[in-house]
Structures are given as structure tokens and as C-alpha cells.
């Protein structure tokens, strides 16, 4: 075995182990829980700060792909993709949804 190759290999192995082990060093299993814990601790530090007024939903909500809870998606009968109840034309293929 060549010494140089061995040294380069050892360095690569060290880098690999460090990279692989990094996520395991984090304290909490769930990053979301950790963020919530941070937020809670910040709130406790300053109780006097009131939570900001929730903003009114903007136009973008209409075109976002997030389904509102509870409404069942309907489908365009031409292209078969999901459309919202308030759509008059299919946003994917342009089919007039009032047609049938």
C-alpha cells in the first residue's frame, strides 16, 4: 500500500465520519419541537410582548396548492387534475368547468 494513498484515504475517512456524525450531535430528535421550545422560552422571557395581529389572508391563498381542511378536491373532467370549487376554468388545461 502506498503511503500517500493511505494518508489521503485516512483524511477522506475522517471527513466522512465528521459529516455523517454531525446531525447525531443535535440534542433533540425533532427540530420542530426544538424550535417550539425556543419560542416558548423567548415568550417566557418577555411576557409583556403581545402576539402580533394575524394578517388578513392575501390573494395568493387562492392560487396556493394547500387544500383548506375539510373541503374535498374535485377534478377537471378533461385533464383530471384537481381544481378548486371557485374555479370557473381549469387552471391546468383551461377547460370551461361550467360546461358539463
Amino acid at each position, binding site marked *: 500500500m*502506498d503511503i500517500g*494513498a493511505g494518508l489521503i*484515504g485516512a483524511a477522506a*475517512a475522517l471527513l*466522512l465520519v465528521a459529516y455523517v*456524525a454531525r446531525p447525531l450531535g443535535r440534542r433533540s*430528535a*425533532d*427540530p420542530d419541537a426544538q424550535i417550539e421550545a425556543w419560542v416558548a422560552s423567548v415568550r417566557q422571557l418577555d411576557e409583556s410582548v403581545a402576539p402580533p395581529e394575524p394578517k388578513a389572508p392575501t390573494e395568493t391563498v387562492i392560487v396556493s396548492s394547500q387544500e383548506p381542511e375539510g373541503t374535498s378536491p374535485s377534478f377537471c373532467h378533461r385533464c383530471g387534475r384537481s381544481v378548486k370549487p371557485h374555479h370557473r376554468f381549469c387552471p391546468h388545461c383551461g377547460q370551461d368547468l361550467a360546461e358539463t
Partner: protein
Amino acid sequence: MLGDLGAIFAALALLATLYGSGAAYVSIRRDDRRWWESARNALIGAAVLLGLALLVLVAAFLTHDFAVRYVVLHASRAMPAYLKVSAVWAGQEGSLLVWTFFQASFTALAISLPSQRARPLVPWTTVVLGVIGAFFLGITLFLSNPFVQLSHAPLDGQGMNPLLRHPGMVFHPPAMFVGYVGLSIPFAFALAALIAHREVRWTQAVRTWTLIAWIGLSLGLFLGMRWAYDVLGWGGYWGWDPVENAGLLPWFTTTALLHSAVMRDEGRGFEIWNYVLVALSFVLVLFGTFATRSGVIQSVHAFAESNLGGWFLGAIGVSLAVSLGLIFRHRAELSARAMSDRLFSRDGLFFLTLVVLCTLTVSVFVGSVLPTITDLLTAQRFDAGPDWFDRVTGPQFGALLLLMGICPLLGRSTSVFRRVKRWGWLVGLGAGSAVVAALLAGLTKPAVLVAFALTGIAGTTALVEIGDGVARRMRRTQSPVLNVLWELLRLQRRRYGGYLVHLGVVLMAVGVIGTRFYPFERNVVLTPGEPHEVAGYTLVTDPLSQEIVRDALTTSATVTVYRDGDYLSTLVPRVNRYEGYQQLYTVPALRPALSEDLYLLLAGWSGDGTEVTFKVVVNVLVNFLWLGGLVFFAGGAVALWPREMQAPWNAIAAVTVGLLLVASGWSMWGASHGMVRRSTGRPMVGHTAPDFRLTTLDGKTAALTDLQGRIVVLNFWAPWCPSCKDDLPVLQQLWEDYRDRGVVFVGAAYDTEVGAARESIATHGLTFPVGLDTGNQLADAYGITGVPETFVIDAAGHIAVVHIGPLPEGQLKMQLERLLEAE
């Protein structure tokens, strides 16, 4: 040094992959995201390490590190650099290393950047892909290691198999690997969905990967066809060889998968189909590798037999058992949504399409394994030849064309036949015009007319779909045609990309029909200088020439092609013989035209060079095949085009893929195929000699029109040409003998200057008129391919004799006598 380094990188990659698979499993068991992130890092690390290992192997080739056994076996110092790079995948060990690199990179990309929908599937996908990656890496490292070193490095390597010395070989294998490896990604996601999240629409989640794999596979097969056409020297592009079939089998099932996924996405069931097809595609990739690497199935591909067969057989068994077992366990859930039971509906015909694609798969599979199985079980071996495959698959391809023609027209819900009624006449017209076109072109076999009708139906339907979509949108948006077309291609990539692919397939079908139904192949023996009629062409060959280029002895023939006495082109087919290889590398010469390719191969020659054998192949309509490919991949590109070009990665990827496509196209079609185009060719014997007007060195003018009624000997020579030195004294002697009998000698000094010409004239004591052929005008008019060449023009101004190369002893004298007698 390089060998050690590569082996270390590969070994570390194997450890990382194994760890990644295990850590992903731990993350599922403990429901702990940290373990999955660690697994992801390990798999990214494995991809980087394998990339480094691959670079090390490339470096070993470029620096001629002949301590590495694989380099010795596949390269030599004389090879050009681009061939040294493609030598990396010239053998099994290197191919497997490239495979593992692709596997690791695709894995890292698929699990790091999953689509929104695919997120829940990622942990199990990581486990499965880790296992697959580790399998291939283990095989590479322990059974087929490219980094094995020799104790004593030889001074030079053995060089590359001549058949692989084609610039296109840089692109064909990687494209196949993209297809093969790409298929493991949807397979892994499907398994993950089966194991834990059957509610997830995995076909939509991995659509991009399925498309990438399918396009890679298509491109690999297509480039392979062109390579076969160019190199293997049998004049065809598809020989139903087991290795070709091994690539075609997963292509059938993946094509079926793309279609069943459309049905699933439209909410029409087909869930079980998706799972079965993705599992079949992956298993068929393994089968292809098994078939070609185990030596079980005989093939023209020059892969060495190896001991990997058993391992791949085991992998096939495990993959089949796991995937089919899971599908069987959840069968009730998966078939919950029944398909429509009407045959003439969108569902019904899609179902038929899948069935035909599956029977095609089975047919080709049976044909590929039949020789082996009959050999094992019975005394008599049954060899399924190309005819068998053509007969069995031909009607099925026809059925596919018909389905392509009907299916898109059927309505999606209620009024199934509304659009068929509306457009039926146009489709019928399309079919009729295709038949009429075939009849006008002289293609009259009944089966061919049926086939053309089918292409007409399928082609018109694809055009109607595109045209109808454009017309409707134009009515709505009032924008110009091109804008609308562009918008449609942009907004509904998959739909209109799909129709473009259909159009491409139809064009390719035209090429296949022409070549399969009207094969023309003949061996002809030509004597240099004498015209030979074959397939409507007249061929005249010059004497053979041989030269040594790098490590090969090149023998080439220059053949002038005429049709009805008119010059068409000059073709130069070659044969290269490489040092140390028995196999010859033939470079065919092609004269392409839309109606047919004239394909010329140098097949052999007699020892004294007086007889040269050519294989003449005429491939009717073959260029429709290549044109169809262009449309096919344009459609594929449309379907794959990223939605968001703003994202820099998408733009970079698109540009890279585009450049690679252009480069691969150039490597296969751009390189010259031995055809020389000139405005004129050498006039044939019996035809009118081109007029000339030459100013001789003593200031007079020699013009053919002034010499009417006299026999003219026109000799092209040059002071730098050795064989001209032998000819000039002979010509001088003949000039002295015949000048009194009305024969005129004219010398045309080719590609030289006055001083050198005068010196030569003085040395040889020439007294017949010699002129300088300025700008090679005269040489071009007479289409000469070298010096010396001698033309004898009779009293009526027709070419009587053509001598290419040195004058044979005494022959010109005899010919002059005969001409004078005839007067």
C-alpha cells in the same frame, strides 16, 4: 498510487452506503429525524467518494498508469484522449464503477431533493436505495474491481477493442446507465409506498425520475442503433441481439409505466399496474445485466464472461419476491378502484395498450432466452433469428400504432365518441394519403400498405390533438399561433410532449417499415476503373490505397457513384486493422437521401488489388428513423422541461443536458461518413469529355474544342508525385510515336508552381504541351482523386479510356492502336 487511492475511495463509499441504509432504518424505528439526516449525509458522502474514485480511474487512463490492470487491458499510449476517457467504460469493471457512481449520485439527489408529495416516502426509500447501492458497490469492489494492480507494470497497454473506437461510444453507455440506474429510483419509492404509505401518489411524486430514466434508456438505445449502423458493418441498426433486447425489455415496461401512471393520476385505478410495471422494469434491468454479463446468453457484444451471473440471479429473485409479495399482501387495497369495463373507452384502450406492451415484453423475453432454454432442455437448439422477432413483434407494433391513433381521440368521461365522430374523416384521410404516398413511391406490398395506413392514422391523430388544442386556445386567447403553441408546450408539458413523442414514433415506424420490408444487400466485385451497375447506381472504384495512421493500418477505396450517368458523390469506405486485434474496424461510407441511404462497405480485395469486393446495402427510408428520433427526443425534452427555470439548478441542469444531447448527436451523425461531395465527378467512359482550355508553359493554348476530330491523351501529373516520374518518360515516348498519326498529348500539372513544373519538364525532356492547372479547375472538372490520372478522349469528344494511378505497361499503346483502327 492511483490504484490504491481508487480502491480506498470505493471501499469508504461501500461503508458509507451500508451505514446510510442502516441509519435510515434506525430513524424509522426510533422515529428520530437525526438518524435520517445522518443517513443522507452518508449517502451524499458515498456519491462524492465514488465520483473521486471515477476521477482516479480517468487519471490512471490519461497518465498511462499501466500498474492498474484495467488500464492495461483497455488502453494504449497511441489512443486519442477522448477514447481514453471512454475506455473507462469499455470493460465490465469500469462499467460497474460508472454504474455505482450514477447509482450513488441519483440516490443522493432523490433523497435530498424529494418533491413535496414524496416526502413521507423518503426514509424507506433511503433504506431501499442504500441496499441497492451497496449490492452494486459490493459486486464492484469484491468481484470486479477496476483498481486491481499488477506487480510489474508493462510499458504499453493492449489498446481498445476496435469496435468501441467510435466517438459515439463516449455517450451511448452513460445514456444506458442513466436509464438503468434511473429506474431504481421509482422502484425504491414504490416499495416505500407499499411498505408504509399506500395513500401517497408515488407515481406523481417520482414522475421526473421515471421520465429521466425513460429518456436515458431511449437515448441509449437510439445511439446504440446508430453505432451499430456505423460500426458493426452489416448495414442494419437493430439485429435483435440479446444485449439489444436487454435494453429494450425495460424500455417496454417503462413506457407502459408512463401510460399507467397517467391513468392513476387521472384517478382511473391502474394502481396494481403501476406497482407491477415498476417492479418489472427494475427486475428486467437486473436481468439484462445478468444476461449480458453471465455468458449464459450468446451475443455479439464483446463482453467478457464473468462470475457475476449467480449474484444477479439472486438479486432478481429477491427483488421479485419482495415487490410481488408486498403487492400480493395489499392486493385488496390496491385494486379498490375498479377500471371501467367498457373496452371502447379511454380506460379500456389504455388497458389494451398496456397489455400489448406487456405481450411485446414477453415475446422479446422469450425470443432472447429460447436458444438457451431449448439448448438446456432438448437436444435441438432453437435459435430465434431476426426474422422470428420481426414476425412476432411486427403485428404487435402495428397494434400499438393503431392504439396511438384511436386512444387520444376518445373522450375522458361521458361522450366517448364525440371527438372520434368529429375528427374521424381527417384521420381516415391521413391514412389514405399515407397509403397513396407509399403507392406513388413504388412500395406496393400489401403488408406495407397496411403498415403505412396505421402510421397515417397514428400520425394524423397526434397532429389533430396538437392542432385542436392550439385552435381552441387561439379562439379563447386571440393570440397568434406560435405563441399559443409555445404556451401549450409550456403549460401542459406532459400532454403535448407526449404527442410529440408519438409523432417521433410514427416517423421512426416509417423508417422501420422501409428498411424491414425492402432490404437490399449484395456483394459486388469491382475491377478498378470499370463501372458496375447495382440497385440503380453505377459504381466505379479507384485502386485501393493503404496508409498507417497512429496504431492502425487503414485500407480505403475511393468509389465514384453515378445514377443514369450523372455524378452523385464520391464514397470512401475504409477498413482499419489495429495492432494486436484480429477484429477489423470497418468504416462504411454513406450517401444519405430522404428516400434511401446507399451504404457501402469495403468487404475484401484480391492480393494484387485487381478485384475489390464491396458490400452494397440500400436502406429504404432509413433517414425517417433518425428524423423520428429527433422529434421523439424533442417531445421527451418538452415533457421533462422544468416548471421553474428561475431556479438556478434547473437552468444549469437543462443547459448541461442540452449540450450533452447536441454533443452526442454530433458524435454519431456529425463525424464524416466517408462521403466526399464535389460539384462534379470523374466523367464515365462513353460520356462527353468536359471541355477544357489550358495555357501551356510555352504560351500557347490547348483547348478541347479546337481538337475536335483528333484523339486526345490528357494526363494529370505533379512534380512531387513519385509514380508520375515513371509515367512521364512513357508518355514522352508515346507522344513521339503517335504525334504524326494525329494523336494529341496534353499534360496538366496539378497542385504545383511554374518553377517546379519547368524543372520536371527539363529533367524528363518532355516535348508535348504541358499547362499549369491553376486553381485545380481542370482537376475538378475531371473529378480526379489523385495523380497520376490519364484520360483518353476519342475523335468524337467522348471519354474512351480512364487510367487511375500509374499506367500499366503497354496498355495505353494498345488502346491507342485500337482507337486509331476504329477510325
